């Protein structure tokens, strides 16, 4: 019976993902100008934000370690993918940015980006994960800054390499930097990357490794007393998470035709920085991968529609004032979420398509419980 249910769940999710892919292919074949200029870039940005938030959730939510340098891994991935694509182009593997050879190179550069980031995660993780809490946060924070400075000072990939006119336009013309048309044409690539990454991450947290790292999060001493090699699993998860951050970086370099290390800093003007990724994980729920997806999309849409959406203009004048300061809106949103959902939007539970028909009953039950609770409280007050 239980197995039957699992099979059904897989079937439903499989159909949903296939539909998603089909829709993205349809859009990329038939989309008009507005879709090309507004929807497609937004989808690409969502793609890398989702992978970033979910991969950090592995470390922050499931392993319980605070990492503040996650964008460092993303920077490594972005530069690796961009440089590899350029190297392949110069070696003459592909001429124009189309055809099977190009797609293979793109996929290879995604994987290479992830692998290099994972290796760096290993190198950083081995010494860093001996520490806990604040100390680990400081080390990872330092790591993010070191990476940015390293990249700036490596001659072939530094600031002077990929963000300035000639080199950035080389990346744009021949490498991974997609123009709006190519973003639309290859939107399925971004969606596919997200689906694959999310699937692997889900499988990871549902596997015995997932149970082990949750055990480490809940009580490190108890976990190690039950025979778990704590350091090994910590480092492994860290590297695993770094892999996906690297892939997100590769998506970023597709999305932005110019790479500048300031985009991967600890804080900056946009919603892509190490702090904001942590915020996304916290808002979504530490320990809920679907929560990270929801939060990443939510934060992105909030940011994107403040500037482009019509709903801001529909608000009364005195409210519009807030929206000229986007950073203020994020903080208010964060306050509201944390006040009403202290453990994030999803807490530690996951969202499942299979359960949607059961929602009305669950919601009813929830409110019945709340009502019962408040009745009890009132009774207690009366008795006093």
């Amino acid at each position: 019976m239980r197995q039957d249910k699992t099979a059904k769940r897989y079937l439903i999710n499989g159909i949903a993902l296939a539909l998603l892919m089909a829709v993205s292919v349809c859009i990329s074949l038939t989309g008009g100008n507005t879709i090309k200029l507004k929807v497609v870039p937004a989808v690409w940005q969502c793609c890398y934000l989702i992978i970033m938030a979910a991969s950090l959730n592995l470390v922050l939510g499931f392993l319980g370690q605070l990492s503040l340098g996650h964008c460092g891994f993303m920077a490594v991935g972005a530069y690796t993918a961009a440089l590899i694509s350029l190297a392949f182009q110069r070696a003459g593997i592909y001429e124009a940015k189309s055809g099977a050879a190009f797609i293979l190179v793109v996929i290879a550069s995604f994987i290479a980006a992830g692998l290099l980031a994972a290796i760096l995660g290993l190198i950083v993780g081995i010494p860093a994960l001996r520490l806990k809490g604040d100390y680990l946060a400081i080390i990872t924070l330092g790591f993010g800054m070191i990476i940015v400075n390293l990249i700036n000072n490596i001659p072939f990939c530094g600031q002077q390499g990929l963000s300035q006119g000639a080199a950035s336009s080389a990346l744009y013309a021949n490498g991974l930097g997609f123009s709006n048309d190519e973003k639309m044409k290859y939107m399925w690539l971004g969606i596919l990357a997200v689906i694959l990454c999310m699937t692997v991450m889900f499988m990871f947290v549902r596997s015995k490794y997932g149970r082990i790292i949750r055990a480490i999060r809940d009580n490190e001493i108890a976990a190690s007393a039950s025979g778990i090699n704590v350091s090994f699993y910590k480092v492994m998860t860290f590297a695993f998470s770094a892999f996906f951050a690297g892939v997100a970086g590769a998506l970023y370099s597709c999305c932005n035709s110019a790479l500048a290390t300031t985009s991967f800093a600890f804080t900056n003007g946009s919603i892509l920085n190490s702090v904001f990724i942590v915020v996304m994980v916290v808002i979504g729920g530490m320990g809920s991968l679907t929560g990270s997806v929801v939060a990443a999309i939510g934060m992105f849409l909030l940011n994107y529609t403040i500037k482009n959406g019509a709903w801001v203009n529909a608000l009364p004048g005195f409210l519009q004032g807030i929206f000229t300061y986007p950073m203020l809106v994020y903080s208010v949103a964060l306050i509201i979420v944390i006040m009403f959902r202290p453990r994030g939007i999803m807490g530690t539970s996951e969202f499942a398509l299979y359960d949607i028909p059961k929602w009305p009953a669950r919601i009813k039950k929830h409110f019945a419980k709340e009502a019962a609770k408040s009745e009890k409280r009132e009774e207690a007050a009366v008795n006093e």
Partner: protein
Amino acid sequence: MKKKKLISLFMAAGMALSLAACGSSSSSEAAASAPASEASAAVSAAGSEAASGDFAGTITLGVIGPMTGTLAVYGTHISNGVELAVEQINADGGVSIGGEAYALATETKDDQGDSTECLNAMNALISDGIGLVVGSATSGCTSAITSVANSEGVVLITPSGTADALTTEMDYVFRTCFKDSFQGQLAAKYAADNGYTKVGIVYCSADTYSAGLRDAFSASCAELGVNVVAEESVATMTDVDYTNQFNKMVSAGAELVFIPFYYDVTGPYLVPQARQAGFSGVLLGCDGVDNTETTIPDGADLSVYNDFYFINHYAEDLAATDVSSCFVSSFKDKYGESPNNFDALGYDAVLVYKKAMEAAGSYAAADVQAALADTSVVYEIASGKFSFDETGTPIKSGVLMGYSYNEGDAAVTKSSIQTLEVE
């Protein structure tokens, strides 16, 4: 429990609304001042009032810049300059294309000084059907949108993106400022002309603007026989500690230190810390240093700002043409303050667009691009006369400006010193 939550929610909402009120009150102020200035513009253009009534259509210019965030001053000033130019042009009968007059309008987008946001803003403008864009303020942001401008066929004039390579590869990208290598040359020439032989550089290798200027400056120094004795980099353009770097400058014996940073760090951190580290020579910045007077903290020792110079695009009192003096006076009328170089360069971008549209006889992006690519046209604008070189960068001169501490009124004043040119 619930009450507590509600109260705190109200407090959060109250906080947000109070800030919103600040925001909206300033915008309502702007709204209040706008009709007044419109009225004055209408009065000044009384002769052409009839013309301003019947425009054949409206041409919308896109404006992208950091309206919020650490570099907000740049964006707001560019936008001020653009608005002034648009207002004046409309009052003077608009842009005449093929015998018909067109009014100008603007659509402004905020990029928060971030390249992804800048790209989003650009795409949004393009999808609104805008073909002529002014933006963005910094080289880093602008480099993210140049390729989109080219591939979508949208003309982009950056008022203050100075990185050399911005315009070299892209046919649709132009600028109204000079480029970094030229700015670096001017700085090196100033050092050579004034007899400095030992100079130092403190810069940020992570930033397009800062690293580009440093490259140009040290290359020109080598040509002119000026010795670069020490060179130090900081991690980010928003670093708050420069003490170590200036200790090294002092021990290397630098007489002049080149500081390609933005105004948000020079006022509160860089200059005071340089003096504290015992550096008493000349600090030479570039156009990013303009507006430092707005970031000097209250109660600071103002004497540290002596011997602090910077290269700039334009100085109000060295204004050479009629257009520039007219710009200065009308800007003061509208905004009640003296224009800085971002105001002037934003204003210029609109004037350049107007002339190009009139020359092309069309406001389609491709035609305007063709008109702008004509290197023989001389543009007479607020920051001087210039014509574009083949890459789309103006050939023009710069000015040297400096800050000095005035003991009498206990204030730091900014003044222009000389016009700088390279042969």
